């Protein structure tokens, strides 16, 4: 019984309420938000520590025993993701001080961001399938608001696509959930792990698992369901794209991991091959899309897709090492991707544009910013000794060990292509001199880079380097998470309390 599983969920909602009440006082909003984000991060760290020390943390809300009541459960994966969420939350909230206009903050940007984080944390920590659906909806609602906040033309167009496909995905999820209830009579995920294997109608169970795969595949941006992502992620303010790209698609990946380890463990049959193929195609199409584009944030959006492919590859291989690789990749990727989006915002402030054509000269005029791009960008591409190198190495090694040589080659090649598109950004935005025709306008629009926005970018870059150099504890944590995922009996026991 541990209340710590509830704090990272309840806290952001409390902060949101306070922030809504004080929406006309920017300073108070900043103070409350920063405190809330720091507390959220602290609570996440305590939770992770408790999971390390005492094992899986479970809370039965109002003491209704599982599987009858609402259950919150934090294993290594959930706790790690909550910590990373806390880091991104703090970084992005700090960044938004410099990025978000006062009008937008008055119109409720802050509460929406807090609610979004609450929903994300809830999705990571819930032990109940229906609650997962509710948290998805909470997240979705907040993300709709954030995506179109400000109501620019481009945002509305991206927003329509995002909203339409995501609503469809949640409906598919809800339908799958209803069918699970029909065949199993329970929605507690640990209980389902026990009940689902004994359902006589295997065909129906397989159909349900495909419903979940489609629903979460849309959320995660899996091939061929990713097209909404690059159509919308480059439209909102930079802070919003950073939090979306870091966390939202990863909730989809998390749900995929949870579903296909706990509810429908992959067993080498058709579904596993489907996931492997989808992972490979996701990696390839994502990176090719990135190669074709010439707008900073669009390139980054396509990279999200290709990176999601790596994580799903780890899940689909379904060996302990591969699972650890997927978890490590997830952690590394959230930090790096959020940071890259933040850097894109800083670069825009400096050059006045997101179009690579119109950018340039950052390396010469602002070497620090160039360095801050270089670290996450080449970590994403997998350069040693940065975090991405280890993440890719573990996954490629796992695919070799599983005898999937083709997939190992694909993963390595996609890494190379990632370098290509990153060097495109590097060459165009950082090395090339600023195009003369726009030079005057850009200099005029150039704003001093504020400490609110530089500090989080620098800290996230520092974390990427730290994970790269001091990799062992992070790999150990991922291995522990993978061990729990591959042997769900421990999770089941912790939730259901020993009853068979």
């Amino acid at each position, binding site marked *: 019984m541990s209340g710590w599983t509830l704090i990272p969920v309840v806290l952001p909602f409390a902060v949101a309420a306070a922030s809504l009440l004080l929406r006309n006082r920017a300073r108070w909003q900043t103070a409350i938000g920063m405190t809330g984000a720091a507390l959220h991060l602290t609570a996440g760290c305590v939770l992770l520590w408790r999971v390390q020390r005492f094992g899986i943390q479970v809370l039965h809300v109002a003491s209704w025993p599982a599987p009858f009541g609402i259950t919150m459960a934090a294993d290594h994966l959930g706790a790690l993701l909550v910590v990373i969420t806390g880091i991104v939350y703090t970084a992005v909230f700090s960044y938004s001080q410099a990025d978000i206009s006062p009008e937008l903050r008055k119109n409720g940007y802050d509460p929406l961001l807090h609610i979004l984080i609450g929903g994300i944390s809830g999705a990571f920590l819930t032990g109940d399938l229906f609650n997962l659906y509710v948290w998805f909806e909470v997240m979705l609602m907040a993300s709709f608001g954030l995506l179109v906040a400000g109501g620019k033309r481009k945002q509305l*167009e991206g927003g*329509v696509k995002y909203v339409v496909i995501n609503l469809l995905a949640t409906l598919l999820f809800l339908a799958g959930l209803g069918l699970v209830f029909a065949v199993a009579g329970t929605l507690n995920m640990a209980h389902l792990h026990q009940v689902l294997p004994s359902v006589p109608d295997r065909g129906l169970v397989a159909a349900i698992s495909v419903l979940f795969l489609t629903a979460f595949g849309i959320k995660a941006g899996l091939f061929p369901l990713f097209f909404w992502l690059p159509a919308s992620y480059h439209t909102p303010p930079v802070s919003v794209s950073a939090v979306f790209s870091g966390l939202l698609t990863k909730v989809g990946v998390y749900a995929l991991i949870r579903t296909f380890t706990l509810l429908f463990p992959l067993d080498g049959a058709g579904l596993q091959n489907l996931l492997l193929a989808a992972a490979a195609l996701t990696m390839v199409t994502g990176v090719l899309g990135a190669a074709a584009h010439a707008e900073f944030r669009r390139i980054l959006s396509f990279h999200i897709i290709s990176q999601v492919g790596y994580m799903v590859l780890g899940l689909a291989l379904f060996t302990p090492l591969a699972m650890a690789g997927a978890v490590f990749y997830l952690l590394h990727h959230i930090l790096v991707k959020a940071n890259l989006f933040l850097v894109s915002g800083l670069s825009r402030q400096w050059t006045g544009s997101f179009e690579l054509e119109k950018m340039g000269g950052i390396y010469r005029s602002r070497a620090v910013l160039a360095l801050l791009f270089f670290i996450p960008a080449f970590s994403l591409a997998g350069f040693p000794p940065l975090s991405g190198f280890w993440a890719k190495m573990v996954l490629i090694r796992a695919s070799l060990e599983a005898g999937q040589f083709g997939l190992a080659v694909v993963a390595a090649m996609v890494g190379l292509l990632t370098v290509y598109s990153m060097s495109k950004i590097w060459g165009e935005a950082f090395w090339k001199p600023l195009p003369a025709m726009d030079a005057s306008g850009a200099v005029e629009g150039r704003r001093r880079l504020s400490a609110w926005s530089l500090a989080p970018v620098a800290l996230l870059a520092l974390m990427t380097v730290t994970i790269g150099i001091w990799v062992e504890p992070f790999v150990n944590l991922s291995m522990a998470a993978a061990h729990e995922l591959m042997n769900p009996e421990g999770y089941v026991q912790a939730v259901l309390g020993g009853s068979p």
Partner: protein
Amino acid sequence: MESMLALITGCLVAGSIYLMLSRNLIHFIFGLVLAGNAVNLLIFAAGRPNGDPPPLIPPGQWAPVGPVANSLPQALILTAIVISFALLSFVFILFYRAYQELGTIDTETLRNDGPAAEVTPHSEDGA
């Protein structure tokens, strides 16, 4: 009872898919409404509505006497209805705002998201 529910759910899903395939965003919303209702009926059917009495505990007892209906699906549907109500009202406003700004509700014209979309209007990228 269940076969009738299954039939209705099937018809609703078929209708909603037909509507959602339309290029008109308004048709799409109505498709979404139908799909939401279909899913709610699906959950209702999942609770095996076979005419059992409601789960009320008679005075002086600690547990219901005899078989009672499963009330959980109703709770789930109620939650889903409330959520979808909020989401749909947001979607209506969003589409209206999009119509005001973009001047169209035809999805074919909402394709300003590929690389250099204005140069090659038939580009298949990202749309």
